[in-house]
Every structure is written in structure tokens, then in C-alpha cells.
């Protein structure tokens, strides 16, 4: 039974946690890909930026003696999301819009987003330094334990993890209603589907672009902050988080927000289960069969150091076998 609890903690829950983070990131990337038609390489650093803003705000409030029922970094989340969304729009205006207007090819925008990511990286490291930081200030990190009958270990979920599940769920539901019910949400889908017809129809592309950055930037800030709350704020996440998010986007199908959510969890679970030590689950089976076979000490499919290979291999396989992704996205 203990082994099963271990599997729930290190496999199922861990996969759901990282899957949620990837999903939140991938929604933004897929919307930007669908509407602005380029792979947004600055998304990873946008997440870090959001977390960094949360850190600064929370640190300032903590220093002012502010306290509340939740960790401060969680309570400032709405402000963080708004600020990050605003910065995203600013970045778009300064760096991407002029290129779009001059009729540059999509790939030039990809290059520009790499320039932006380097700028963000530089600024974040200049102000935050290279070391990682805690987003918990005065308050303890609550841990919830669920007892399992017949096991002396417990299923454990920390406060930020629980919060992550809740905000992910809320975001997904809100996004669903926004895209399927609201005028602007439908317009976003229309632009993603057929930009020239959308223009002919009188849909203002710039409004849609702005909405895209608000959602993408806001969710990136959310994902970055939640990740930093769960682990810690690392300024050098960048490409290491970007690759699985791109993989999630493409696995889900480009331009498909629901696909991005599914893709996020697929990639998150693939990664978690690939580095999971399966001997833990084999040991009880070996005991029942009177040790008919020997269980190696560690039986992970992929060594932890090579974790990044998992999203990459997924990405390559999907490009070979189903470039449209599971939700039949666009092939650009």
C-alpha cells in the first residue's frame, strides 16, 4: 500500500502539477501561434517575469507587515497577471507590431521574440541575480495529508499545489466560456481560423491581438508564479520550460486551446512517469511471487538528468506521425 501512495505522490500528483503548469503556458503559446502566427520564444521568460513581479510585490507587502489568510504571493496574483498582461502588450507594441506592419515573415517575428526573451533574461538576472528565491515570506507552506487505510505513508499535497489545481481549473473553465460565449472570444477563434476573412468581416485584428496578449501574458504570469510558489523562483528557467510548453502546444494541435491543455498534461505525465522509479511498484509484485525476479534498485525509463528528452521525443514523434496534433490543429 505504501508503494501505491508513493506512486500517487510522485507519479499522479507530480504529473498533474507540472502538467497544469505546462497547460497554462501552452494555452498562451497556442493562442499566439494561432492568431499572430509565430512561435513565441519569449513565453518562458514571460512566466519568470510574472513570478518576479509577484516576488517583488509580495516582498514589499511582507515588509510592510501585510498578512492574510493566503500566502501574499497568491493574494497579489490578480495584480501580477494584469501587470504582466500590460507588459506583454507593451512588448508587442514596441517589438512585434512594427514588424507585422512592415509585412515581415512569421519567422522574423520568431527571431524578434528570441531577442525579447534575451532582453527579459538579462533584465531579470540584473535585478534578481542568478540565485533562486523563495516566494514564501512570513507564512508557513501548509501541507495537507490524506491518510490511506493500510498504509503508513500519506498522500501529501502542499498549499501551492492545491491552489495550482484550483486556479488551473478556474482558468480553463473561464477560458472555455470566454471563447465559446463572448463576442471577443469568438472573434479570436475567427481570426485564428481565417485572418483575411475576419478582416473582411470587420473584426478588428488589433483588438484581437491585444486580447491574445492579455490572456497569454496573464496565464504565463499565473503559471510562473504558481511554479515559483511550488518550488522556488529560478531566473534561468527559460528554455528548459519553453521546450515542454512548445511540445504541449504541438502535441495538442496549434491554435487549439483545449488541445494545449490536453497537451500540457500529456507532456507533464510523460515526463513524470518517464523519470519515475518503477521498481517501487515492482517490489510488492516481487514479494507476492516469492522474489521470482530481482528488482533493480532504480528502474526509471529515462534518467532524471535527461528529463528534457521526453518532451523533445514527444515533439519529434508528433511531427513525424501527426503534425496536426491530437486536436487537429493547423500545420503551419
Amino acid at each position, binding site marked *: 500500500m505504501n508503494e501505491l501512495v508513493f506512486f500517487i505522490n510522485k507519479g499522479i500528483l507530480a504529473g498533474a502539477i507540472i502538467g497544469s503548469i505546462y497547460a497554462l503556458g501552452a494555452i498562451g503559446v497556442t493562442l499566439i501561434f494561432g492568431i499572430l502566427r509565430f*512561435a513565441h520564444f519569449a513565453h518562458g521568460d514571460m512566466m519568470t517575469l510574472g513570478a518576479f513581479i509577484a516576488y517583488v510585490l509580495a516582498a514589499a507587502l511582507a515588509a510592510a507587515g501585510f498578512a492574510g489568510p493566503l500566502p501574499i504571493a497568491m493574494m497579489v496574483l490578480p495584480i501580477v497577471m494584469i501587470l504582466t498582461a500590460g507588459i506583454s502588450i507593451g512588448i508587442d507594441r514596441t517589438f512585434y507590431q512594427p514588424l507585422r506592419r512592415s509585412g515581415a515573415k512569421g519567422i522574423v517575428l520568431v527571431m524578434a521574440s*528570441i*531577442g525579447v526573451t*534575451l532582453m527579459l533574461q*538579462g533584465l531579470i*538576472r540584473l535585478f534578481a541575480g542568478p540565485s533562486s528565491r523563495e516566494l514564501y515570506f512570513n507564512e508557513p507552506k501548509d501541507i495537507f495529508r490524506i491518510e490511506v487505510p493500510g498504509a503508513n505513508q500519506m498522500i501529501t499535497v502542499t498549499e501551492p499545489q492545491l491552489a495550482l489545481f484550483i486556479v488551473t481549473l478556474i482558468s480553463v473553465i473561464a477560458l472555455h466560456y470566454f471563447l465559446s460565449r463572448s463576442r471577443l472570444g469568438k472573434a479570436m477563434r475567427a481570426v485564428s481560423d481565417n485572418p483575411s476573412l475576419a478582416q473582411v468581416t470587420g473584426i478588428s485584428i488589433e483588438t484581437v491581438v491585444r486580447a491574445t496578449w492579455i490572456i497569454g501574458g496573464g496565464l504565463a504570469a499565473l503559471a510562473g508564479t504558481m511554479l515559483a510558489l511550488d518550488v522556488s523562483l529560478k531566473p534561468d528557467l527559460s*528554455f528548459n520550460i519553453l521546450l515542454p510548453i512548445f511540445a504541449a502546444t504541438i502535441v495538442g494541435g496549434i491554435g487549439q486551446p483545449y488541445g494545449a491543455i490536453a497537451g500540457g498534461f500529456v507532456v507533464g505525465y510523460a515526463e513524470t512517469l518517464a523519470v519515475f522509479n518503477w521498481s517501487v511498484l515492482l517490489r510488492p509484485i516481487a514479494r507476492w511471487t516469492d522474489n521470482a525476479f530481482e528488482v533493480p534498485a532504480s528502474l526509471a525509463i529515462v534518467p532524471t*538528468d535527461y528529463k528534457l528528452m521526453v518532451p523533445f521525443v514527444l515533439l519529434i514523434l508528433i511531427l513525424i506521425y501527426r503534425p496536426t496534433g491530437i486536436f487537429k490543429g493547423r500545420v503551419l
Partner: protein
Amino acid sequence: MTDNRRDLLLFAGLGVLFAIIFYTQGTAYSLRVTVEALCYAMIAFGLSLQWGTAGLFNVGIMGFIAAGAFASLFVTFPVNQAFWDSEGPAMLGDVLVKVAIGAAAVFAASRSGKIGLPKPLVTFLTLVTLAVAYLVVSASLDPTARYIEREAGFVGGLGLPVYFGWAAAGIVAGAIAWVVGKICLGLRSDYLAIATLGIAQIIKTFLKNADWLTRGTQTVSPLPWPVPGAAEVGFTAARASYLVLTAVMLVIVYMLLQRVYHAPWGRMMRAIRDNEDAASAMGKDVTKRRLEIFVFGCVLMGIGGATLIHFNTIFDPNGFVDLNHTFLIWVMVILGGPGNNRGAIFGALLVYVIWTMSEPVTLVIFDYIRTIGRDMFGWQAPADLNSRALAMRVFVIGLTITMVLRFAPKGVIPERLSRKA
């Protein structure tokens, strides 16, 4: 004619810049910077070919440099007798046989459609074979790696002459490029960007963790030189002869590229780049041409990486970073003028010099900021200000990229389309 004169002027300015550096920084140091800049120019040729000529977006240059560097290390480093005397070669041979069998099985499975199997089944078979092959290989590689690390440290090299190593560097980088290109080049360039970014991170991770093969973070040194070293002919003479060697290689590659550029093949590539619709109408042929370009460009990157790493005589997987080995090269190429080989050289030399000089300059500037901040505002600078200061260079690289794209998309020495054609 005026174009040529302009180029000449720009290069003359560059010459003056180098003269100043030689004069102020001393010959030995300046020789080092120049050799490194030439190695970067070789790599920049590769990117200029890919991006400038064919519009291929490679953000994994670091991976191809690292792969080339490792290949050269393996071929040229002295033989590790302890490894060859142990069980290691036999065990490794066993692993390689399994790799070969696995690869053959996967290939066979992927071609099983030829005997009439339905497509989903072929996919399923291929994936299962791939998974099984992976598990078998990794299960036998693990103990082998541990054994080699315990008994012999690492595999060592083959002890062959350096030129063989450089050739191997090109071959290995090209082979990896072939696989990546085969998968991604039929699709839009964004996919290639993502895939190359990924492959670069993975190559680095592998080189860093495969201690049995590369000694990982313990680094390997000294790498042999193709020319007499400092111990034999003295510091300056040794570096100068390395400089001559790289310069000669660069000139040969330049002439080769110029010929290619003006050949019908080069014209066709530019046509493809400038008109994607026409390109897709031409279909498969285009993908094949693109693959050739991509592989050739990566070969140059591999060779450039090997020359760079041999010059510094140390192989350190952690020394390969995206900033220095991917984005710096992008700045060189887009600033110099993509699609123009003179632009690539010019960009590489200029940017590399600025880059090297920027480190001390940044530190000095931040030292001032620290002093002024302390004296005037009582500001206590963070202890890691120096490493933070260097982050400014990352910012500047990013800013340069975005600004060049917006205000000078054709670079300093723009591509010249010959009207003759």
C-alpha cells in the same frame, strides 16, 4: 563598384580596430581574440548559408558546435590504455551491436507498409520497436557506463591527427543535422526553430552527463593542436600559426561558398527563400535542397566548433551556452548581412571583438555604479553584482537582435542580387 568600395572601407575600419587592439592589448591576447573570431566566422558562414541563402531558422547552433567539438575530441585525444585493456571495449561493442540491431529493427518496422500492412499498424509497430530497442540499449549501456567510469575513467580518444578530428566534427554535426532536417524541413520554419533549440539542449545534456564518454563536468584537456604548440615554438609563434591555419581554412570555405552562391544552385535557393509559394509548388525537390543546405551549414558549424575548442585546448560541456554559441552568432549574421559571405565575416569579427571587450567594460561601468551608488545614495550593492552586470550583455544581445530586425533588416553589408541572372 561602389558596393565593393563600401565593403573595402568597412573592412579597413575593422582592420584599424584590430590594429588598435593589437597595439593596446598586447600581441598574445590579441592573437587569441583574432583566432577565436575567425573560428566564429566559420560558424557564421554556416548560419549565413542556412538563414541568408535558404531562410532556414537554426537556433541550435550551440548543439552542432558541441557535437563537432566532441567528435574531434574523441578522434584526436590520446588513447586511454586503461580503457582498451579493460572489459570496456567488449561491453561497449555489445551495446553498439544492440544499437545497430535496434536501429535496423525500427527501420524495418517503419517500412513494413511495403508488405501491405495498414498505416496505423505500421506506426504502432514502429513505436513499439523503438520503445523496446530503447529499453534494451539503455539497460545494457547503464552497467557499461558505470564499469568504464570505475575502471578507466572514460573512453579516451583515438589518438589520430587533428585534421581527422576536424573532419569528424563536420561529419557528426552534419549527420545530426540530416536527421533533424529530415523530420522538420518539410514543415514551416517555426518547427525547425523549436526542434533545433531542443536538440541543442539535449546534446549538451548528453555531453554533460555521459561521463564515460566525455568525462562530463570534469572536462578533458589538453586537446592537441594541429600546429606546433607554445612549448615548442613559443606563445606568439604558436598562436600566430594557428591563426594562419584558421585564416587559410576560412578563405577556402569563402571561395567555395562564393562559387556555390553564384552557381544555378545558389540562385535557385534564393528563389525558394524569397517566394515560399513557388517553393511549395516545387514540392519535394525544395525540401531536398533545403536539407542539403542545412546539412552543409551544420558541417561548417561543427568544424568551426572543433577549431574553437582545440584552440582553447579544453573540452568543457558546461562551456557551451546558448548565448555565446547560438545567439551571438545570430547577431553576427543579421548584423553583418544575411546571405552575404563578406557580411558574415565582417559581422563575426566585429561582434566578437565587441563581445570580448564588453566583459571588462561592463564590469568597469558597474564598478562605477557601485561606487557612485555607495558614496552618493548609501546604496549597498548586492554581493553578486559582477555576475548580474554580465547579464546586461544578454540584454544588449537581445536588444541588438530586435533593433537590427526592425531598422536594418538587411545588415551592414546587405545581400547583393546580381542583375546578370
